[in-house]
């Protein structure tokens, strides 16, 4: 009896832990590309967040880490690119086709 109760309680705790971890996982953070500009230019996120870029221009763009550690392929109109940030820091990025397009992700 006691044993069964403890087991049930442990299972409940486990379930609530799973629930808690799901709640802690941040929602994806959108960044849009409009008129040759990354918007927002500065995005603040927490570790583990996935940033999703969407190109809304009639011209392809790319999303490239300033240190070239990660990059998208060319994004045509409507295409998306995702990258998950697993470490804190400030990450500058730009479009390798139109390098005057620069922005940053700040991970805390």
């Amino acid at each position, binding site marked *: 009896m006691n044993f069964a109760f403890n087991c049930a309680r442990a299972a409940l705790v486990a379930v609530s832990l799973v629930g808690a971890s799901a709640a802690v996982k941040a929602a994806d953070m959108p960044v849009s590309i409009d008129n*040759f500009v990354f918007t927002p230019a500065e995005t603040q996120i927490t570790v583990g967040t996935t940033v999703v870029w969407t190109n809304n221009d009639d011209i392809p763009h790319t999303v490239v880490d300033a240190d070239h550690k990660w990059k998208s392929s*060319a994004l045509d109109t409507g295409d998306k690119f995702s990258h998950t940030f697993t470490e804190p820091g400030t990450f500058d990025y730009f479009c390798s086709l139109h390098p005057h397009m620069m922005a940053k992700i700040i991970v805390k």
Partner: protein
Amino acid sequence: MTHDAHDHEEGATRRKVLECMTWAGTGVLWTLSGGIPRSTGLIGEAKAEDSKAFSFLQLSDSHIGFDKPANPNANGTLMEAIGKVNALPAKPSFMIHTGDISHLSKPAEFDTADQIIGQSRLDVHYVPGEHDVLDDDRKIYLDRYGKSAKGAGWYSFDAGGAHFIGLVNVVDLKGGGMGNLGADQLAWLQADLASRTASTPIVVFAHIPLWTIYADWGWGTQDSEQALGMLKKFGSVTVLNGHIHQVMQKVEGNVAFHTARSTAFPQPAPGTAPSPGPMKVEDAKLRTVLGIRQVNFVPGAERLAVIDTPLAG
């Protein structure tokens, strides 16, 4: 002397005519003599004056594969451009294409471009635009157009007594920068120019302008000063670019810079729109802002006549 004076006077008159023609959107012509631009008239007249002139053409920014509102039929307008080429009274010696042949570097887009441009039956010398090298190793472009080129696709050749240099300024672009030639290409350029005499007319062509037109939109090449420094000793240098989809000209010393129209869609004048993206104009106006360029060259005369002709109007 009398002849010179006459020439000068006639030049002034023609300049007036030229201004009118520009306003009417008909076509612009400059000749260069020792780097000083003079107007001389339109295609027929230049031909009559210089019967031994050889000419070549510049096409740019065909963007095959582009299908957005600014021009849903980039294939059709490229066909019209080639129609203009084929209708020229005198066959040009060859053609250069200053990049953005394709919109997304897809083999099918290059196939279509080759098929349409091939109708001209002219030799074509290409340099890539950023839209042509979207694949990581730039293999699709290089396998097709750059087999005998160096590095990312640069090369030179001689024609009609002039030295032609095709440069690549669309790869390895740095964040916050503009177009980029890079150390390897600059070293190659220096070696390529070393054996040329100062009297050799030089024609340089590349996709992104080699002078800074508008830094906010990246319309320039960050290390072009080094290339232009190497060209200072030459009496006649003509720089032909694309990328900005509109005609702009500048003369600095013996160097004349020209950007060409696109055959696909126009882009706004610097700073006149929120972005340099494709500009939608009225359908009836589209062909007045697209076009081809003819360059007439007179061996020994050190002057090039650059004629920009829109598809219509």
